[in-house]
């Protein structure tokens, strides 16, 4: 497995929507390298014949009747919004230059 580069971390930070300074990127790259190094043996632990487990107990899809349950009022839904207008969440521009 190749070592994690600073560029890799910068890309991951962008994917995860985490703005990072040069200093932070440097520190994170070092820490991540150590952690990944310590846990990568996991890829040698199990052979191809072992099935993957995503959940601890067997689960089936849960359906319910299509009836209105507990809901939030518009006011409740918006009460914690950083910005709202006309009963809607308000955000800055979605696309650059518009």
């Amino acid at each position: 497995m190749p070592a994690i580069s600073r560029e890799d971390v910068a890309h991951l930070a962008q994917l995860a929507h985490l703005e990072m300074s040069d200093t932070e990127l440097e520190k994170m790259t070092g820490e991540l390298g150590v952690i990944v190094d310590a846990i990568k043996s996991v890829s040698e632990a199990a052979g191809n014949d072992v099935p993957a487990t995503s959940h601890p107990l067997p689960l089936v899809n849960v359906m319910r009747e299509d009836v209105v349950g507990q809901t939030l009022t518009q006011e409740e839904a918006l009460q914690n919004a950083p910005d709202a207008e006309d009963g809607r969440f308000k955000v800055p521009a979605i696309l650059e230059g518009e």
Partner: protein
Amino acid sequence: MNEIIKLSAADLAAKLRDGSVTSTQAVQAHLDRIAAVDGGDRGVHAFLHLNAEEALAVAAEVDAIRAAGGPEAEALHPLAGVPIAIKDLIVTKGQPTTAGSKFLEGWMSPYDATVIEKIRAAKLPMLGKTNLDEFAMGSSTEHSAYGDTRNPWDLDRIPGGSGGGSAAAVAAFEAPLALGTDTGGSIRQPGAVTGTVGVKPTYGGVSRYGAIAMASSLDQIGPVTRTVRDSALLHELIGGHDPKDSTSIDQPVAELAAAAEQGATGDLTGVRIGVIRELQGEGYDAGVQARFDESLQLLRSAGAEIVEVSCPNFEYALNAYYLIMPSEVSSNLAKFDGVRYGNRVLPAEGPMTIERVMGATRAAGFGDEVKRRIILGTYALSAGYYDAYYGSAQKVRTLIQRDFEAAFAQADVLVSPTSPVVAFPLGSKLDDPLAMYLNDVATIPANLAGIPGITVPGGLSENLPVGIQFLAPAHEDARLYRAGAALEKLLEDQWGGPLINQAPELAESSKEGVA
């Protein structure tokens, strides 16, 4: 110290029922204790928010119902009027929920978690919200954005984490009951290092609706108390099926308090207890190992058959956990984008697009450990690495489950130390994430397999508490209470009372209390 606060929840409930103590007196006694020891520079700092007014109102309501008598008084829940503290990862109407993060500072949930609805219905006064590592990510509560919680046994040491606030509150007699959440040990490890009892129920045994999700296939809400019986009573209250949680088990809660009572006879004749070879020895403090070995002798003397079991794949459990958990974290925390809630931060310069606002908002709102786990999870799930990391970790999860299956074929319950070490000094592992992660080596396998676990006090090493962990097969939580209560009784007979009575008296740290 007011004697009311030293009572177990069960004993306090009995006094509320016979009228010798009122709920108002009980709540006020705990609020006074919090005011005396929680605030100030050298306070325990277990609480992030106090809910005094509502708690006293609920207490007055319970007292009025009891005073009036009749069917309404008869119908009161056995724990009605007994105060409780809530880990600040669980959402509550009327009180802020921060998850220990700056991101959610001041956030008011528009709804109650299911466990909170049950607590309200049973009329337990809620004292307030307790401190935790940010979004429950940590083993020391030092990753909270709102300051460290101190261990009541030694104020310069960690109370464990992530639920250090709930464990410290109970250990410091600031509350007889508390709620915690356990993703990799966040109830049991704090319980171990504060000399208290904590239970991680079977996955799906307690509704997760309203617990802010960290890793959804691992998270579980559970009780934090000073006695095994109290945990059983609280577990019975909060457990059971909830249609709002699609992973909730559709079965009634087992008779847990009865199992604890059976255990409290101190007789374990016919019970097979498996000692996990891989969860002892190297990496475990000598003092922890010594208390563990003594507990085994006691269990044997109580009639239990002690067998050794081997779980060879536990070697990979920590590694698998630190891939699965951050992967789920990176997904679950994507919703914290500063659009619908959270404190929005604008980028210092450049175009003001929503993506850049999200980047700046998350950068300012999240602490270092949360960022580390989000990046690690994003990496583990990214193209080219998914099979090697996340895929392999899921296979290890299968191997861990098989290890447990084989072990439970030989034993009714398994036993190990809860934490390999006693409470360490504040700050000593903060710069070494790997050393911090190792604290959960004995608790993580249960989360990966979805099985229940309990920690009970096992004595002292270096004057600090050691925890003994029991594990049971999924849905067999009752076995934990029987074995845990038995060990508790056998040890308390030796000590001449609960271990917590040996904790040093806390000095009054502040008259101001918390904000």
